[in-house]
């Protein structure tokens, strides 16, 4: 039996070790030297069981700022090109990030997401799909909403504010600034098994998710966009 044939792997992830917990606590320990890191609504984050954490995306440092307040590993979808560097790939998987391929529908990434949720783990997806260029909330990506309609787990909306001031994507370095992370009240979307039902429910589900995130940010919500 080939050692690395994916059909024969039992699929157990390594337990979080020292590296994970060091990275997990890094933001709370280091960032106060540069600015405040405030959290609101932490009581809304389920302590056990699966949930889909859906947030806006302002900066490359968002995973550190957000997930430091969730006291267990959160599996994060990241674009596959970020795993191109072997060193970076190892660093990211040690924090339970997993790749999603762009320019194609990636059923592997969708299946992995649903599998993690089925096994009781939380998954974090950025609904905007990429970092904002100008600090404003961008339209949601339909693919994320489709996963939410398929998963049937609580959605925890999350807003991060201030990380754009720390490291906007058009600059090469971080600066000191105050960051706020707010978790909203979890809600359930209907679990829809048929594609036509999901497509019909897509706009309303997207509005619900974006409305929750926008309310936490104190800005008007954005809607699914035509490009």
């Amino acid at each position, binding site marked *: 039996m080939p050692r690395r044939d994916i059909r024969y792997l039992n*699929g157990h*992830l390594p337990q979080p070790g020292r590296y994970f917990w060091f990275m997990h606590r890094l933001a709370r320990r280091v960032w106060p030297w540069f600015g405040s890191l405030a959290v609101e609504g932490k009581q809304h984050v389920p302590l056990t069981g699966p949930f889909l954490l859906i947030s806006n995306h302002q900066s490359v440092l968002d995973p550190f700022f957000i997930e430091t307040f969730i006291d267990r590993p959160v599996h994060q979808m990241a674009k596959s090109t970020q795993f191109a560097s072997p060193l970076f790939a190892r660093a990211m998987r040690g924090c339970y990030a997993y790749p999603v391929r*762009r*320019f194609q529908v990636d059923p592997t990434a969708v299946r992995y997401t649903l599998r993690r949720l089925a096994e009781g783990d939380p998954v974090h997806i950025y609904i905007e799909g*990429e970092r904002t260029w100008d600090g404003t909330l961008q339209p949601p990506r339909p693919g994320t909403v489709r996963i939410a309609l398929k998963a049937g787990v609580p959605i925890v909306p999350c807003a991060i504010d201030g990380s754009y*001031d720390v490291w906007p994507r058009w*600059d090469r370095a971080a600066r000191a600034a105050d960051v706020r992370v707010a978790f909203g009240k979890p809600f359930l979307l209907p679990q829809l098994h048929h594609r036509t039902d999901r497509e019909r429910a897509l706009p309303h589900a997207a509005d619900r998710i974006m409305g929750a995130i926008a309310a936490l940010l104190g800005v008007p919500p954005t809607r699914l966009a*035509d490009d």
Partner: protein
Amino acid sequence: MKRTERCLECGAAFRRGLKATIITRTTDGREETRPAAAWLEQLGPVRVPEPGPDGRMVGPERVRVRSTVGQKPFYYGRAFLGWIETYTPTRTGTMDVRADGLLFLPDRGPVEHWPIASITGLQPASATVQLGFRDHMTSIRFLEGSVRLWTRVLSAVLHEHWGRQGYHVLELQPHIRTCRVATSAT
């Protein structure tokens, strides 16, 4: 953004200020600080240049290019996490955008023309533009040029290409999705 950059059109110097502000200093010495979003609003949408006599719209810009050649499984322990791409070696050269596609002149090797019709997706990153093709993806890193300008121009060219064939572009990423433009009966 490098420490201080200069606008090629008006000569104003600009650099990052506190937080995500941008400080500009015009050639007559006036200095102004505003958030990036405020500058974007003032500047308005990116103007898509008209093609020149040689058909060139943007460029030439110095770029670094690499393309995917395949993909491999990615694991953590015994768990299969997904697929990641494998790449060709990076090539440097110059690139420009024309109405019918992109022209890449590598420092070594033959000139390559990438027709607009062969592009299946367009996605900007911070310093790169990623183009999807039928069987591979190409990442273009700009050594000096503006990702936003290139994205806007390529987006406009793609919209025009599909519009000529009677389609409206709904989205460009993860892949180009179109719908037929309704034609009125006369």
